């Protein structure tokens, strides 16, 4: 859960020729690391766009190294559009797209995709539903036929609704075995509250799952799955004209519709710092989530926050990982992230801690979360974080799926498509004062929610002795435990 970071495609800039005369091995000076040549220069990949008459926006990035194509549809049908009485409807609807479409049944769709060597996926995140395809170039046509069936002509058969509903019921039951999933659900519910779109469980609850039916799915689909709320990204071994032709032939007839606007929920006021304990008897580790509501993707402080989080918990050498893992050995890894969405998402610091060290680890967590506010970041640490972000950019654009991930983010959050062209200078402009300012502005330890999923009988006394706040007892849904 290292925070996702945007990175840049870079040209194959030729390095200056390195000294080629091999020194005898005995003469190697190992007393200091080698001086490196200047890093390669950057070139942003070209994005071309087109809009179909029905409002469907298309973006194309040509990558011809390998004959594969990656297609992503971002539909304004994310979990934020879940009705209050039916959390889980958006993810269920996205899943149902593949359970019958056009003249094909659920098994036919799966069989056809596999036969074409295509990965076909549908799902829903907070701010968008996605339908995606990754396929060898020469099967692109028939694979797009399949994708178009799934997105435009789902049939939602009652038998398949019942089948998937039953399956989901079993999966929700299995969440009780997964302390990480429990911690994430509980943390979101506690921080955002059950009525905020980011506070509801994306996969629904036992109650909401039982209430899923064809009418609700169809209604949701018809309201939200529209070309004018959709952006399509094609990355790989195609040209704009080719992609336009293939897409227009299949998605050109998709009828526009007036979709309800995304909700504008207001964030609840943060409560005073508390520890929320979710009991998991016999757990070998305590899963810890510490945080609060953070920022939206539109924040003007994006770049300062990227640097802040890289220093705090966004890389292997970050403070949280170094302290909790490399200095103390309490965990296999600790990290933090600002999850930036259309609305303000959470800031969260995370780790799975050996049960006996739960309290000691929380002391170190809180120490680091306070220190980054109280002290200016040393220059060397700041420089390392900025270099890690900016010099690491090319790798993010190496593959079609990597590039698709980066550009999907721009499309989803209405950011300009030349965004990455100024990314590095904006990272490099961040100062230690900026980092401290955003730390003080966006990290408020007095109002952290500290969620711990672990063995209450073994950790409760230690948590009480911390005096980091009262202990409240919650269930896996974040609700008050009986």
């Amino acid at each position, binding site marked *: 859960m290292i925070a996702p970071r945007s990175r840049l495609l*870079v040209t*194959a800039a030729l*390095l200056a020729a*390195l000294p*080629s005369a*091999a*020194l*005898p*091995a005995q003469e190697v000076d*190992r007393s200091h*690391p*080698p001086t*490196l040549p200047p890093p*390669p220069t950057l070139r942003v990949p070209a994005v071309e766009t087109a809009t179909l008459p029905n409002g469907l926006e298309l973006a194309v990035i040509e990558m011809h*190294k*390998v004959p*594969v194509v990656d297609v992503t549809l971002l539909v304004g049908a994310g979990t934020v559009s879940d009705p209050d009485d039916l959390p889980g409807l958006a993810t269920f609807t996205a899943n149902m797209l593949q359970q019958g479409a056009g003249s094909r049944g*659920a*098994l036919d769709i*799966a*069989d056809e*995709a*596999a*036969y074409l*060597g*295509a*990965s076909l996926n549908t799902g829903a995140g907070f701010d968008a539903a996605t339908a995606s395809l990754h396929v*060898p170039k*020469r099967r692109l046509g028939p694979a797009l036929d399949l994708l178009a069936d799934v997105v435009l002509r789902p049939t939602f058969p009652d038998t398949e609704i019942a*089948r998937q509903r*039953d*399956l989901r*019921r*079993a*999966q929700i039951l*299995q969440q009780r*075995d997964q*302390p990480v999933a429990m911690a994430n659900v509980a943390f979101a519910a506690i921080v955002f509250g059950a009525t905020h779109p980011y506070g509801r469980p994306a996969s629904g609850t036992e109650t909401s799952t039982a209430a899923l039916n064809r009418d609700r799915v169809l209604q949701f689909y018809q309201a939200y799955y529209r070309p004018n709320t959709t952006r399509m990204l094609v990355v790989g071994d195609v040209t704009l004209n080719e992609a336009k032709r293939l897409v227009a032939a299949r998605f050109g007839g998709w009828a526009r519709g007036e979709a309800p606007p995304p909700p504008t929920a207001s964030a609840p006021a943060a409560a005073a710092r508390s520890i929320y304990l979710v009991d998991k008897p016999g*757990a*070998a*580790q305590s899963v810890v989530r510490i945080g609060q509501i953070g920022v939206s993707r539109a924040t003007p402080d994006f770049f300062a926050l990227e640097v802040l989080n890289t220093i705090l918990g966004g*890389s292997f*050498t970050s403070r949280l990982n*170094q302290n909790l893992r*490399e200095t103390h*050995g309490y965990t*296999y*890894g600790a990290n933090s992230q600002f999850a930036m969405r259309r609305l303000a998402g959470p800031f969260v610091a995370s780790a*799975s801690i*050996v049960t006996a060290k739960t309290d000691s680890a929380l002391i170190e967590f809180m120490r680091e979360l306070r220190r980054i506010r109280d002290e200016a970041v040393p220059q060397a640490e700041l420089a*390392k974080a900025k*270099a*890690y972000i900016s*010099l*690491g950019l*090319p790798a993010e*654009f*190496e*593959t*079609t799926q990597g590039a698709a991930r980066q550009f999907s983010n721009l499309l989803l959050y209405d950011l300009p498509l030349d965004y990455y062209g100024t990314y590095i200078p904006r990272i490099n402009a961040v100062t230690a004062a900026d980092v401290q300012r955003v730390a003080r502005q966006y990290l408020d330890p007095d109002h952290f929610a500290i969620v711990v999923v672990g063995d209450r009988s073994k950790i409760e006394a230690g948590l009480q002795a911390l005096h980091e706040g009262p202990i409240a007892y919650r269930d896996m849904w974040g609700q008050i435990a009986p």
Partner: protein
Amino acid sequence: MKAAVTAWRSGATAAGIALAVLLLAAVPPTRLAAQALRVPYQTFTLPNGLKVIVHEDHSVPIVTVNTWYHVGSSDERPGRTGFAHLFEHLMFMGSEHVPTGQFDQLLEAAGGDNNGSTTEDRTNYWENGPSSSLELMLYLDSDRMGFLLPEITPPKVDLQRGVVQNERRQSYENQPYGLAQENILQRLYPADHTYHWPVIGSMVDLNAASIEDVQQFSRTYYTPSNATMVVAGDVTLRQVRPLVERYFGGLARGPAVTRTPPPAVGLPADVYATLEDRVQLPRVYDTWHTVKGFAPDDAGLEVLGDILAEGKASRLYKRLVYELQIATQVAAFQDAGRIDGKFEIFATARPGHDLNELARVIDEEVRSLAESGPTPREVERVQNSIEAGFLGRMERVGSFGGKADQLNYYDYLVGTPDYFQRDLDRFRRVRPADVQRLARDYLLRAHRVVLSVVPAGHTELAATEGASR
């Protein structure tokens, strides 16, 4: 693994290929396999035995250094299980000229990332970064290859012991069904077989690991002559070779590594076992002994696994999850290493169903394949998906499963780094009659380990001998 990333299995299909994709002019529309996969490389070996493979890919200005030490958990001795992986962690703790913590600090400051992983057969390490960071990577890797021991102290061993034990807790003990694999291995392999224990090892053995163990292990296995290094990306041989010679040339060759051949594996009878776990739903695992990676039947067994359980169109998914709705999920796969292999099927029951119900259907489907074989389309579907996987993995040079890692994988397992096309050909050659024979000989007519993992206190849900089969 050093850092928490997606688990990496040294499976036979993990591949990364690229370059020189030769599309034939007139491709028949129903055939996918009309292209040659090639990953050109150049190789040289230093006098101390370090083999180096260089692959140029100038599409993005990045470089990766991928080093395989030919040592894994199968080289451990009883009482020290988990040691190869603990040693992997110590490789990041500093060396004589690189103080503790600086390995990661220097790489990140150069824009790089790194990780490592351990399997039964090998331990791998990679660094990815901008092409400008090549020399730093070689400096760091050579220092820990040649100058690790002076810096390894008991407190460092203790610290990483704690990290690894937390890895075991996080990835196994605190995971539902997380202890199933070690329970299967100890029943499938005899105690003197080196696949008898899991890579992660036991808590007791991890506690026993000493500084003397570290020293002996390092001198035996962490030597230039027991390693192969791939350098791939936006670099040239002309650039790589002098740097490798400079940093690695002075390191001393190690002793030849000798291994005793593994004992024979064979179950004289079915073995049934039940494990109570903190799970909501019971799960049954059937495991058969098969063949090692790249043995003649290895690829066919992978195809068999995919026909049984890959995707919703597969036979077991269709019966268990879709039609009968008695399972939430099912998987089947050939899992083959350098010295041996196994075939595994597992399925998780839905609420209200016991494992005998699932086991009965699994047996019916295995029998059906053994008696009638798959359809040509089923085989072709699986082959097309496997080929797409090869193609998709051609896009990346670094990390786990990228082209560099794959060159090392093929070099170690089959002795030919650019084995991509020939590996794919193995799958393309599989015919329905092969799958039928494999289902019959390796599954239907062979003995197996049947492990039931049930919610604590509910052993009545377990699969029982004779009830289903």
